[in-house]
């Protein structure tokens, strides 16, 4: 009976030291709440667009489908490279992990650059955020998404620095997986933003 009180194996302290499922669970929790945030924005956009009964379709034609398609390609590919980086990190192949992570970051930066090109083209044609409800939504939705991309790039950069500094000693724990999950989430949001903004004619 008193052994029970002296027991140390399997205790919560031991479990905690592994940092096992905690970061991943925490990140899924965060992602769930982010789905609701983006959901709020998307619901507002969808509802207003439907309320316009097709009037926004011609406005959407001022957006560049080719550029956005290219951007979607960039993000989809970056999801591939980050999951490969994670796999490599887990297998101890830190060079492959580093390279794939670097490509992910570059693809993310590329996305932002293309977005910047889109914005400057649209603004030079007079389509500012205040040019009407469609444009207000366009800049708000893509702007918020872009902010999330920037945060993702920063997170990935800090991981890259960590891998480069530690080399073989880099431990691919759940933090790498958590960063990957965040990046995939950003990709999934774009997967819906793209048709909602660009393809709904």
């Amino acid at each position, binding site marked *: *009976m*008193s052994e*029970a*009180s*002296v*027991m*140390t194996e*399997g*205790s*919560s*302290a031991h*479990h*905690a*030291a592994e*940092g*096992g*499922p*905690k970061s991943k*669970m*925490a990140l899924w*929790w*965060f992602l*769930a*709440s*982010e*789905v*609701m*945030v*983006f*959901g*709020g*924005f998307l*619901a*507002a956009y969808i*509802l*207003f667009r439907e*309320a316009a009964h097709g009037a926004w379709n011609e406005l959407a034609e001022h957006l560049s489908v080719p550029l956005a398609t290219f951007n979607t390609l960039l993000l989809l590919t970056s999801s591939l490279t980050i999951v490969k980086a994670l796999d490599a990190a887990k297998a101890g192949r830190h060079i492959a992990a580093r390279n794939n992570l670097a490509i992910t970051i570059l693809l993310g930066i590329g996305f932002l650059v293309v977005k910047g090109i889109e914005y400057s083209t649209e603004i030079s044609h007079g389509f500012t*955020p*205040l040019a*009407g*409800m469609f444009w*207000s939504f366009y800049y*708000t939705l893509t702007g*918020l998404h872009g902010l999330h991309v920037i945060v993702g790039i920063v997170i990935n950069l800090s991981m890259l620095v960590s891998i480069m500094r530690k080399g073989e000693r880099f431990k691919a724990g759940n933090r790498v997986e958590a960063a990957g999950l965040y990046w995939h989430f950003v990709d999934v949001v774009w997967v819906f933003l793209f048709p909602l903004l660009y393809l709904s004619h």
Partner: protein
Amino acid sequence: MSETGHAEPTSFFRRYIFSTDHKVIGKQYLFLGMVMALLGGLMAYVMRWQLAWPGSQVPGAALLSEPAVVDGVVTPPFYNALVTMHGTIMVFFVAMPILLGAFGNYLVPLMIGARDMAFPRLNMLSFWILFTASSVMMISFFVPGGAAAGGWTAYPPLSARPLLSGVNWGMNLWILGLALEFSAFLLGGVNLLTTVVTMRAPGMTMWRLPMMVWMQLTAAIIFMLSVGPTIAGAILLLLDRVVGTGFFVPQQGGDPLLWQHLFWFFGHPEVYVILLPGIGVLAEVLPAFSRKPIFAYKMILYSIFVAGVLSFLVWAHHMFVSGMNPTLVMPFSVATILISVPFTIVIFALIATLWGGSIQLPTAMLYALGTLTMFIIGGITGIFNGSAPVDIYIHDTYFVVAHFHYTLFPTVLLGGLAGFYFWFPKMFGRMLNETLGKIHFWLTLISFNAVFLPMFALGIGGHVRRIYDPSTYDLLKPLHGITTFVTIATVCLLLSQIPFLINIVVSLTRGERAAANPWRANTLEWSTASPPPHENFVGDPVVMRGPYEYSVPGADQDWLPQMQDADTATTR
């Protein structure tokens, strides 16, 4: 993140200010919540003085300055700010910090047999984010234009166009303060969920969790799932204000009702986020002082889960008279009436817990009984509001104010005080004075009813909410006596807290030292010292049974702690 097994900090700052110990953080939330409660209560006092004696000098208003208060008289813009900030502070900076931040943080690791939360440093960050948020809210009073004044519900276009309300930075700071508060509790929620899922002691199955832990968990989940649309709405509102977009402005093609939907989609589940920990307090206190197991543990849980799901489907009952499509009125009205069913089951289960018990009446139990009975009044009056034809008449009157004060006040204040009196010995190692406690209870209970019961009559009589000077309306002149009575009762309610504050100071310094388990209760926190050591438990707890094994036939004492060896705890 550094986990358990770290040495106890020694410097004052690391022990009491920037601590990662969930017990310290819980007390910090408690202290912050109590300070904000005092501020929110004083705001109500100033408001009520203006209502009872319009245009008169408010005692104590000399402390406030122009342009809010002119010669001691509350100005209309300041009155609106008081209304807004009273509601905002009470919901977001009192109810949530006390019920979730304080009780959640302090109790959950102890009750599951863990040494701390899953992410102790994140826990500390959450508190300090909330502290910053509270500061931002209070600072908003002092910027040009004053604090936000569009109601705690911030309906546009009034809230979307600074020119309409005269409030500019105050409202922007309000949005910022709320954003910070949401962040604090989102971070806190992830901490709580991860802790409960991954750090329960051996033998602590989900079905052996104390009801308080279930309530905290469910509340955190509801909060996390509901707050998103309001965050989206708040960002859109901020853009409207600062950039000039027109998401909620009709002239620019926007829709004010969109805000209302986005706000109440969260706003309604939020009140259950607040309610659930209050029920958790009852679920711990009532069995302990009836010396009986809680009645129908699983039934209560399933009812709470059903209610949690339903809570996402009733939000538009706040909008029956908003001009929204009438087609939506009936479904939301039906769902609202339906949600009373699971809560009624819970209330009945709590009453059944008392039935046939050997009832003891320390202050904590008095407060618990007060919470239960007063909440029943609140719950019943919810039916009237939920029934759309009736709501058309009573919406935005003092009837609604009475309803939600009869639900929120019992939950937050009476329930919070029940928890405070119950867990004070554990938290601070001292017993509170019972005589002062009982005086506090009766004064508070009677004053509370004196304030809010007449409001039902005021509401039906036509007294609408948020008006500055009722004496300008002929309709309200016959009701003025009631209004004055309510104001006097408000002063009494505030003064009734004095015995409480005295009790705290006296007990902390000279109170009788508390044993580990002064109430002879079963949950894990009572099997360790009062207050618990830094690592919560000596040795590792192993759980042998459920939390409500009171008066088990054949046992030699009428309580049976969850941990096997009650004497592994260091008692004094």
